[in-house]
C-alpha cells in the first residue's frame, strides 16, 4: 500500500527529529548558555567542535537548536493533549446530544472563536508573565476550538447512522452512545486532525517567541533563536538557518504524518 510507505517515511522523519532533540544536546560538551569569547561567530565545521557554528556571543548553535526543538515538541504535544481532551469532550457531547443543547454549545464556540486570539494571548502573557504553562494552555485552547467544531459535525453524522439508532432502540442512553459508539469512532478522525493541530501550535509558539512574547530567557525556543538569527543574518547566516531548517523539517514531518494517517483512515471499510 502506498499509504503505508508514506506513513513509514513520516514516522521515520519524526522519530529522527524527536530523538535528535532528545539526546542531541548531550552529544556535545557545550552548555547552551555557555559563552565562549574566543569563539565568536565560528562557521560550521567538524574540527573546532561547533558542528553548526557558534553565534555572536560564542554559544553553540547545534546544542541550542536541538534544545529549542525539545521545547517546541513538548509544547506542541502539551497543547495537542489539551486540545484533544477538551475538543473531543466538547464536540462529541454536542454532536451526540443534538437539539437545543448542541446549538447553544456551538454558538458559544462561535463567540469564543470570534475573539482575537493572538491579542488575548499577548495580553495574558504581559499580565501574568511569560510562562510556558500559560503558553501551552493558550495554544491548546486555541487548537481545541477547531477540533471541537469538526468533531461535533462528525458526531452529528454518526448520531443518525443505523448502528447508533439501533443502540438507541436497544435502550442505550446518551452516555452509553457517547462512550461506546461515538467517541471510539471519532478517535481516528481526532488523531488525524491533531497531527495537523500540533504543528500549528508549534508555529504559533515560534511566532510569539519571534516577537519576543514567548518563553523568557534563559529558555530557548525555535522562534527566539530565529529572532536572534535574523540579527546576525549578514555575518553568520547559520545562526538563522539551523533553527529555521529544524522548524521546517518538524512541520513537514507532521504534515506528512497527517496526510498519511488521513489516507489510511479513508481506506474503504474503515468508517
Amino acid at each position, binding site marked *: 500500500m502506498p499509504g503505508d510507505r508514506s506513513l513509514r517515511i513520516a514516522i521515520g522523519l519524526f522519530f529522527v527529529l524527536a530523538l535528535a532533540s532528545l539526546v542531541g544536546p548531550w552529544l556535545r560538551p557545550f552548555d547552551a548558555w555557555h559563552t565562549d569569547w574566543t569563539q565568536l561567530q565560528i562557521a560550521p565545521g567538524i574540527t573546532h567542535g561547533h558542528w553548526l557554528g557558534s553565534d555572536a556571543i560564542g554559544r553553540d548553535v547545534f546544542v541550542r537548536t536541538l534544545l529549542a526543538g525539545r521545547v517546541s515538541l513538548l509544547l506542541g504535544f502539551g497543547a495537542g493533549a489539551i486540545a484533544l481532551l477538551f475538543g473531543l469532550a466538547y464536540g462529541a457531547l454536542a454532536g451526540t446530544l443534538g437539539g437545543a443543547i448542541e446549538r447553544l454549545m456551538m454558538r458559544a464556540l462561535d463567540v469564543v472563536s470570534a475573539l482575537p486570539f493572538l491579542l488575548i494571548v499577548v495580553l495574558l502573557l504581559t499580565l501574568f508573565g511569560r510562562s510556558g504553562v500559560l503558553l501551552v494552555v493558550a495554544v491548546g485552547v486555541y487548537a481545541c476550538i477547531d477540533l471541537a467544531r469538526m468533531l461535533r459535525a462528525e458526531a452529528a453524522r454518526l448520531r443518525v447512522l443505523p*448502528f447508533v*439508532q*439501533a443502540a*438507541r*432502540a*436497544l*435502550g442505550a442512553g446518551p452516555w452509553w452512545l457517547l462512550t461506546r459508539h461515538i467517541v*471510539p469512532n471519532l478517535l481516528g478522525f481526532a488523531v488525524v486532525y491533531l497531527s495537523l493541530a500540533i504543528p500549528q501550535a508549534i508555529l504559533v509558539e515560534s511566532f510569539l517567541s519571534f516577537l519576543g512574547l514567548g518563553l523568557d530567557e534563559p529558555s530557548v525556543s525555535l522562534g527566539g533563536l530565529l529572532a536572534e538569527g535574523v540579527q546576525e543574518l549578514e555575518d553568520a547566516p547559520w545562526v538563522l538557518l539551523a533553527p529555521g531548517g529544524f522548524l521546517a523539517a518538524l512541520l513537514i514531518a507532521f504534515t506528512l504524518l497527517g496526510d498519511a494517517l488521513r489516507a489510511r483512515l479513508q481506506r474503504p*471499510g474503515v468508517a
Partner: protein
Amino acid sequence: MSVAKLSVRQLCVRYRDGDVVLRDLSFDLAAGECLAVLGESGSGKSTLARTLIGLLPNGARTNGELRFDGEVLDIAAAARLRGRGIGMVFQDAAASLHPLRRIGVQLSEALRRAQAGRTVSDALGEVGLDASSTFATRYPYELSGGQRQRVMIALALAASPELLIADEVTSALDPLAAREILDVLARLQRDRRLALLFISHDLLAVRHLADRVLLLRHGVVDALVDKAIFFATPPSDYARVLLAAAVRGAAPLLVSGTAVLQVQALSADYAERPALRDIDLALPRGGALGVIGASGSGKSTLARVLLALQSGHARTLQIAGADPFVLSHAARKSWRRRVQIVFQDPGMALDPRMTVAETLLEPLRLHGIGDATTRAARVLELLASVQLDATLAPRYPQQLSGGQKQRVAIARALALDPELLVCDEAVSALDLPVQAEILALLQDLQRMRGLSLVFISHDLAAVRVLCDRVLVLEQGRVVEHGATVDVLLRPQHAHTRALLAAST
C-alpha cells in the same frame, strides 16, 4: 445479426492485488440491441463497464480484444470515445451531478462541447422531463431520484453516443421511478438505434428491457442467451437459483388474536415537515404487516415512531402493550426490550469498531442480563439462531458479507427476545439469493418465536411472501389496507395499482 457495434473477445481483467475480476469474457453487441449483464455484487459487472470506458483503477491489467465499430478499443481509444461514441450512466446520479450548478447549465455545457446543435429543452424533452426553462434552472438537490437519473441520461446522450452503458441505473430508485427510467431507456434505444449495455442485478428490469442476457458469476460467463430462453428455460444451475429466488410462494393467511400494535390517528414530522398524517394501523400478535409505498411516502418515519426514536402524536398508541411516549425513563428502557428494529443498510448497521461478539453482547450489557458465562453462551445461541457460524464472533463488520452483516443485525435485534420486530427495507440492499435467505430466516423466526413483524419495503414480492396484511402509504397517508391477498390481487386505489404495475 448485423455487424457488431461492440465486440469483446477473451477479455481478462486482473487488479493489482492479483484478483482476477473477469476471465475469458466474449460477446457481441449490435446497434439497436440491448444486452443485459446480470450478476450479484462482486461478479465483475462494474469492472466490465469501467474497462469499456477506460476507467479501470491504476495497476489493473487487461488481456483480450475489444473492438468498437471494428476499431481496436485500447485505453487511448476508450479515453477518446468516452462521452462521445460511448456514453455511460452510473447508479448514483446524486454523486455524478455537480451539486452546486443548475442542471440546465450542466446540460448546455455538455451539448456545447459535443457541438450537438441541440438545445437544453430538446435534451430534457427527449428523456421525458419538463422541457420548460424553469425546470432547467433547478439544482440537482431539487429533483427526485428518478429525475436526476434522467438528467444523467440526457448528459450521457449529449454527444450522441452509439453505445450506452447503464450501470445499475434503477437500483437506487423506488419501483415507480425505476419503471419510468426503463421506459425512457427502451424508447431511446428504439429511436436512436442505441446499442445498450444494461448492467443490473434486478431481474424485473432485465426482463423488461433486454434482448439478450449475459449472466456473470465470479467474473466468468455463466450463460449468454436470448431473454425469452433465459426466463423460460434457465440455461444453468445458477440461473435457476436466481429465478427461483425471485419467484416466491403465496401470501400467508390472515392471522388474528390480541393486538401487539394498535395505532389510531398517528401524525409525525420528518425534518420539520409533516411526513405522516392520521395513520391507523393494527397488528395481532404473530402477524406480519407489510408497509409499502414509494420513497418519501413516510415509511421510514413510521418505523422511527414505532421504535420511539422520534416523537409522534396519536389518539391511541399501543405498541407492545404500552405508549412509549408517556412512559417514564426507566419504564421506556424496559419497554425497548419488546420492540426492535433491523435497518436497510447492512454496511452501517453495525459499529465498525465492534466485533460481532461485542455487538451481540451490547443489548445484554445494556439491560444487565446474565453474567459473563451466560452472556457468552447467549451470543453463540444468537449466532446459531440466524444460521451464522460461531467462528464469525471475533470478526469485525468489514470482514463480513452484506448478508452476514444483516444476519448479525437481526441477531442483535433478537437478543432481548422482542415481541415486535420492525424491518425497515431490511432486504433491499442485498443480492437476490441472499434476500431469499433472509426472508426465509424471518419467516422461521416468526413461526418459531411467535414474533410479530412490521415489514417496510418497496419490494412487493417480499411483502407478498412474508406478510398476511398490507398497508399502502402515499405521501404520509394510508390509501389502502387489508389482507395481502386482497390488496395485491384486487387493488382498489390507483396508487396501489401503479405500484403493482411497476413490479410485475
